[in-house]
């Protein structure tokens, strides 16, 4: 955040960093070997839709592209809007690598069209622990953080911190814990 932003107010949201998304596919080995976690076959990307017509038509174009990509890799795509008005594109695929590339395809497509700033986060679900484990990727800062919900509005902070400690070497992890956004009602 520069001095200009402070003096005159922000005029732009920060652009997304989707380049570190693929780090998750390499970390998957550690997740499986050391923690017994493997992909639940589902991942999703969420974005804040703009109300402008330009955004709608750009998003429709990307949708078609994703459908084509998904068909070739055999994954199924689903779309949802959550209670807070964020759009979700959900990818079902047994292979984590395919999920990550579909998510990356959407983020790259939106960025290409000039709407990358509308991306909120991507969530990847893993099974094998006491509770489902989500790795959430924040596009604004290009970092991952763990999210382990256990019951109504509760998250298992101990497991989350353990995940952070074990994966720190392989994943770019958000160091500021106040930014570990929770996604309790994520449709994944």
């Amino acid at each position, binding site marked *: *955040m520069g001095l200009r*932003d*402070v*003096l*005159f*107010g*922000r*005029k*732009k*949201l*920060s652009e997304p960093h989707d380049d570190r998304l693929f780090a998750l596919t390499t970390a998957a080995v550690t997740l499986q070997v050391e923690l017994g976690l493997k992909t639940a076959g589902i991942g999703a990307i969420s974005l*804040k*839709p*703009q*109300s*402008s*017509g*330009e*955004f709608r038509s750009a998003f429709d174009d990307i949708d078609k592209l994703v459908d084509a990509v998904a068909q070739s890799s055999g994954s199924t795509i689903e779309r949802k809007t959550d*209670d*807070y*008005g*964020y759009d979700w594109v959900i990818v079902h695929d047994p292979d984590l690598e395919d999920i990550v590339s579909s998510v990356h395809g959407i983020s790259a497509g939106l960025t*290409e*069209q*000039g*709407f990358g700033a*509308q991306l*909120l*986060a991507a969530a990847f679900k893993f099974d094998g622990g006491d509770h489902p484990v989500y790795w959430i990727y*924040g596009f*604004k*800062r290009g970092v991952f953080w763990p999210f382990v919900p256990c019951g109504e*509005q509760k998250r298992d902070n101990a497991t989350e911190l353990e995940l952070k400690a074990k994966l720190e070497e392989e994943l770019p992890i958000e160091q*500021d814990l*106040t*930014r570990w*956004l*929770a996604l*309790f*009602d994520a449709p994944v």
Partner: protein
Amino acid sequence: MKRRSYGRDAGLTLRMILTSGLLGLLYVLFAAVLIVYLKVGFAPMLVIVLGMAFFQYFTSDKLALAAAGAKVVSREEQPALHDMVERLCAMADLPKPKVAMMSTPVPNAFATGRSPKHAAVCVTTGLWERLEPKEVEGVLAHELSHIANRDVLIMTLASFFAMLAALLTRFGLYFGMWGGGNNRDNNSGPPIWLIIFVVSIVVYAISFILIRTISRYREYAADRGSALITGSPEYLMSALQKISSQMTLIPNRDLRQVEGMSAFFIMPAKVKSAASELFMDHPPLEKRIAALAEIAREMGRPVA
């Protein structure tokens, strides 16, 4: 493809520069007068004002919340509000501020805190219950933009010398009443305390207007920030309408049904003089709505 960064209001930026420049000039002149005429007592006064400013600056988040009687709410108490704030923070790339609620039916909200890391955002129960979720989101995004734009810092800086001038005015008054006239070393001119007194009053009056002007510009900037974060300025527009409680005047029943009542729906035309706007710290609603409408038109358009 590059999209234009909407809300690129060159006029607003220019007016901000101009007002800040005027305020800076005023403060430099004021400091010059102080140095020339007031040789003693300046240092302790400066310490007092600096101390006050620092105290205000560093305690702003707790102070404002306590003053408003707002209560910090946990995630368990208000999960939906926390979810909303967290997501908007992620969109705006801000750390999550403290979330507080104030128990009053009047819909309103405010943000405070010296930096994004020491910030709090507060909504009233009226806002939370009476507005649509998307409208609440627009209002929250407006408050988060205040945090992102560091408005507490800006306003503390802007009002620092105004505080000093206000203090001097009082100081000069006491000095004149008790000690004035005793030590008049130059017989020709007016007493020093009178000069300081008059200059302080003038500085205070002018800086008051300039500070209000800067404050109004910051509101426009925060409105723009809200449109940026939520991507849909129309919800902030309707939220602003509702908050200023003019929405209740828009009839939502068929005109024929309420024909007998329609006389009550005509709003009395408000005459707003340019002078009254000078003293307000928020811009008039119509102007904010107009600025947001302009952003809505620009939004998503490719760079021409």
